[in-house]
Structure formats: structure tokens, C-alpha cells
């Protein structure tokens, strides 16, 4: 794609006329450059630090494992990005993953086949997203309250459906999905790459993408210009739910069972990746590559700390520090 991306981090120079790009040194002195590229700078920094401290970090096997571990978070961060771009937030994302996993496990255990199980899991999480969007727009309830409510609601639903017990999912399809390779990457990495490409095209190259950013930027103006902002918001939450469903499939494939446990760090990290990716929490400004690299960076952080034998207890602390730091840098974003 040769055309410049108006909203991608690459367009930090948007203020300057296209004919006169600022020099590299001017760019490096501009704080908004660092804010827009926080996730890339962070990832490169981490790779250098961990690579020096523990050369195993840079081994092909470790990098492949890192990408594999990042795939789920990348997919979730994309879903979260669509919601945050409308100046909303989806707190029910990780709970939706759990619900999707449980439905997948139960349908499969009931003998309906793995494909129907995956389909129903994605449908269920998409329905959760649709419901979120409907309550926020038609119900006029703040996004925070609605998704906090569905977070609790579907957690309960998951526990009721599963009886609190994990369900083993012994499927050759999922086993191959989790462990198979195509080229240098495992299948989950390809799923994440495909999600990034599709989401990038949707955000930058479709009317929906422009309307999404317009809705997030100034809902009332977008409305006045004839954009159906409520529909756009509902679509964004549904996309978020859909991504949760894909993540649920990848998660069940990875651990081989559907567990009625919410991985809260998935939720926090999805928001963190979005912030690191330079997406404005006030809406109207988003990219897909940014959050995807943010997700990669957070995974690299955990991976590197583990290789350095740092206690797992320190990992949330490190993630928290980095996210707050990123938000601080983001204040310089223009």
C-alpha cells in the first residue's frame, strides 16, 4: 500500500504539508513522535535489553514461543481498539473469552463437533458485544457501567453453564491449530496476522473505518453529518466480542481445556496494549499496528522477565509501570 495512512502513527507529520516532511532530527526531538511510536520504541528497547541480559531471549525458538504467546493478546487488543476508537471501553472482553471457551468446551463435549463448537463460541461472544453496544446506545448507559455489568453477568453465566468445572477439549483440529506451523510461524500467529490485516483494512480503507473515527472523535458532529453513530458503536462492540470469540478458540487450543476462570491480565493487557499503541482513549484516533505491537511488547516483557528468572509476582508491577509511563508520554501526543 503506497498511500500514506492519515491516522497511523506514521502520520505524526500530518501537521506539516505533505511536500515538506520534517527532518529526522526534528522528528526525534518531537515528543509526539515518541508518543505515537511508544509501542515500537518500547518493543525495540526491551528486545535490546533482554537480548543483552539473556542471549537465549533472541533465539529463534524463544522468539517463536513469544509470538505464539502474543497471538491471543494481539487479537483481543484489536477488538479493544475498535471500541476505544469510539471513545468507549470494553471491560467484559476477558469474561467474554471465558464464556466463549466454556461454550466451545460444552458444545464439543456434547458431541456436536468442533467446528460447530467454535462457531457457537464466536456467535455467543459476538452476541455479548452486540448486547453491550445495544445497552450503551439504545439504553443510554455509560460504557463503563454496561461492560462492568456484562463482565459480572457473563462470569456468572459461565460458572452456571460449566458448574465451575473445567471441560477437557481433545480435538485434533485444535491440537493442530495450537501446535502446527506454516512457514516460520505457528498457526495462531497467522490467525493474529490475518486479524491485523483485516482490521487495518477495515479501519483505514472502508467507509466504516472513517465513520468509526468520526463517531469517536465527535459523536454529535458525526450525527449531524448523517452518520448513524449508534450503529457504528454497536458494530464496534460486536467486533470486540467477535475478537473475544477468536481468542477463546486460540486459548482453548493452547491449554487443551475450557476453564471457568477469567484471565484478568488479558483484559488489563488489552487496554494497556491499546494505550501503548498510541490509540487515544478519548476516541477518534486509532491504528491497528500500534496496539498489535503494544501487545507484542507486553508479551516480550513477561517472556524476558521469566527468562531472567524474575519472580512472576513482579510481572504485573512491570506491566503497570510501563502502561502508566506510556500514558504519561501520551500527554505529549498532539
Amino acid at each position, binding site marked *: 500500500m503506497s*498511500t*500514506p495512512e*492519515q*491516522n497511523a502513527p506514521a*502520520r505524526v507529520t*500530518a*501537521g*506539516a*504539508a*505533505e*511536500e515538506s516532511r520534517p527532518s529526522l532530527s526534528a522528528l526525534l526531538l518531537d515528543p509526539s513522535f515518541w508518543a505515537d511510536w511508544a509501542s515500537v520504541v518500547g518493543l525495540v528497547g526491551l528486545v535490546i535489553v533482554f537480548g543483552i541480559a539473556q542471549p537465549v531471549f533472541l533465539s529463534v525458538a524463544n522468539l517463536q514461543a513469544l509470538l505464539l504467546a502474543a497471538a491471543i493478546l494481539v487479537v483481543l487488543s484489536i477488538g479493544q481498539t475498535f471500541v476505544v476508537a469510539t471513545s468507549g471501553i470494553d471491560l467484559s472482553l476477558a469474561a467474554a473469552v471465558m464464556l466463549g471457551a466454556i461454550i466451545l468446551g460444552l458444545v464439543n463435549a456434547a458431541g456436536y463437533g468442533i467446528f460447530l463448537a467454535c462457531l457457537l463460541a464466536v456467535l455467543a461472544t459476538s452476541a455479548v458485544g452486540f448486547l453491550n453496544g445495544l445497552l450503551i446506545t439504545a439504553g443510554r448507559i455509560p460504557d463503563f457501567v454496561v461492560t462492568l455489568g456484562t463482565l459480572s453477568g457473563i462470569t456468572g453465566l459461565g460458572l452456571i453453564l460449566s458448574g465451575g468445572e473445567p471441560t477437557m477439549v481433545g480435538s485434533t483440529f485444535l491440537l493442530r491449530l495450537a501446535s502446527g506451523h506454516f512457514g516460520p510461524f505457528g498457526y495462531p500467529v497467522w490467525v493474529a496476522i490475518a486479524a491485523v490485516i483485516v482490521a487495518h*483494512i477495515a479501519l*483505514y*480503507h*472502508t*467507509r466504516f*473505518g*472513517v*465513520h468509526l*473515527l*468520526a463517531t*469517536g*472523535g*465527535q459523536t*454529535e*458532529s*458525526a*450525527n*449531524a*453529518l*448523517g*452518520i448513524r453513530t449508534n450503529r457504528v458503536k454497536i458494530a464496534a462492540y460486536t467486533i470486540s466480542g467477535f475478537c473475544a470469540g477468536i481468542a477463546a478458540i486460540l486459548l482453548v487450543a493452547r491449554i487443551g481445556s475450557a476453564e471457568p476462570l477469567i484471565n484478568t491480565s488479558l483484559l488489563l493487557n488489552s487496554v494497556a496494549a491499546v494505550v501503548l499503541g498510541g490509540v*487515544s482513549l478519548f476516541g*477518534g*484516533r486509532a491504528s491497528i499496528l500500534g496496539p498489535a505491537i503494544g501487545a507484542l511488547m507486553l508479551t516480550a516483557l513477561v517472556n524476558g522477565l521469566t527468562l531472567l528468572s524474575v519472580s512472576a509476582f513482579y510481572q504485573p508491577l512491570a506491566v503497570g509501570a510501563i502502561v502508566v509511563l506510556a500514558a504519561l508520554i501520551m500527554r505529549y501526543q498532539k
Partner: protein
Amino acid sequence: MSAVHHIPSSEAILACEGLSKHFGGIRAFTDVAFQARRGEVTAVIGDNGAGKSTLIRCLVGVHVPDDGEIFFDGQPKPFGNPDEARKAGIETVHQNLALIDELTVAQNLFLNREIVRRFGPIALLDRKAMRTQARAMLSRLSINMPSVNQRVRRLSGGQRQAISICRAAGSGAKLVVMDEPTAALGVQETANVEALIRRLRDQGVSVILVSHNFDQVRRLSDQIWVMRAGKMVATVRASETSGNELVALVTGAA
């Protein structure tokens, strides 16, 4: 000049007859007859609360009038919503709701009427075509803009207003409706926007202008309509009136 009743002539691009609008017990305006001639700048003036803005909103479909008829291009045309009016060829420049800060000039100019290329079921934006046409739209109205890739957030109030007007005109609208287009602008910027409105008229676009500024109205418009307390009380040719007369008509001192 007192009672204003015209049968909508073929010269009228937009006209109304016996139009009334009430909000609950509050009367916005009653029995209003009005017409805007094709190819002219038609001004509606009046004090705060005279009913100007509500009248305009009824004419472009934001509000549905309680009573009366609206004619567009000689045909009775009740617009149920702004989209219908837009499709018929009426564009409205909203006071503060015209642009999206985070989008670029080109994206704003083509918002909700993006150019797409179809690949089977998928429609992708033709961003190059939109940028090229955006430049053409701006230069046709002699609007200076460093780059169509610039975010609107960084533009001045006058530039923003110019883009909203350009957006309205660029859709091939027959009629552009502006509510206080220079209310928040400085002297130089106001002059630029006024020049822009003249260029619009010179290109054959009809304009309806709501304004508080009597001098501006006399400079810009061809026909002036005066509202007072929910009634259309007078209409005068701009060339045949004075500032004092307009003040008298608006306040009811005549």
C-alpha cells in the same frame, strides 16, 4: 411591506406557506410564509428567540412543522429528516457541528459520501481520488489550504468554516443553508468567509443565511426577511434598505 404572503413562484428554490411550529405550549413561529429565490443569497434576520433557527430547521427537515407547506424547486416537499433534504439538494452548514477534528481535510470533505471502489462485495475507499477531488473542491472556491492531509484540529476558525462551506457546496447542492456562519470569527476571517459565500452564489448556488449582523446581511444578501416574535413581519431587497430600517423592523419600532 407589512403582511408577507407570496404564492411560491417558479423563481423560488425553497418556499413555505402557512408554516407553524410549536414545542409543547411554546410557540416557535406561526403562519410563516417565506421564499428563497434561485441563485440569490436570502437572509433571515431577527432578534434572539424570534424563531429564525427553528424555521430554518423546519425547512431542512431537522424539525417537522405542525402546519403548513414547504416547497422545494416548485414541488411540495415535506422533509422527514435532514438526510432527505440532503438528498434533494439542500446542504446545511451547522454552527458548531460541521467538522470532525481528528479527521483530515479530505476525510471531512467526503465524510459520509466517501468515494469507494468495489471489489465484489467489498467496497474500499478510493483515498487518492478523494484527495485529488478535495484539492479541486478547495481551489474552485479559492480556499487556501496547505494540505488536504492536514487534521482539521489544527486549523483556524475561518479555515474550518471555509471547509464546512466547501463541503456543503461540494456535494452539488442546489441550496446551502448557513446558520450564523461568521458568529465566532475575527474580522479578517469574516471577510474571507463572506467572499466565499459570494463566490458560491456566483457559481449559481442559492444560499439561505441566518445572521444577527445587519451590516453583513446588507453586504451579502439580495433579499432580507425579518422575523419578530414568531412571525415573518417583513421582506425587503437588500439594495433598497438601510441599517436603520432593518433595526426598526427587527425591534418593531417602525
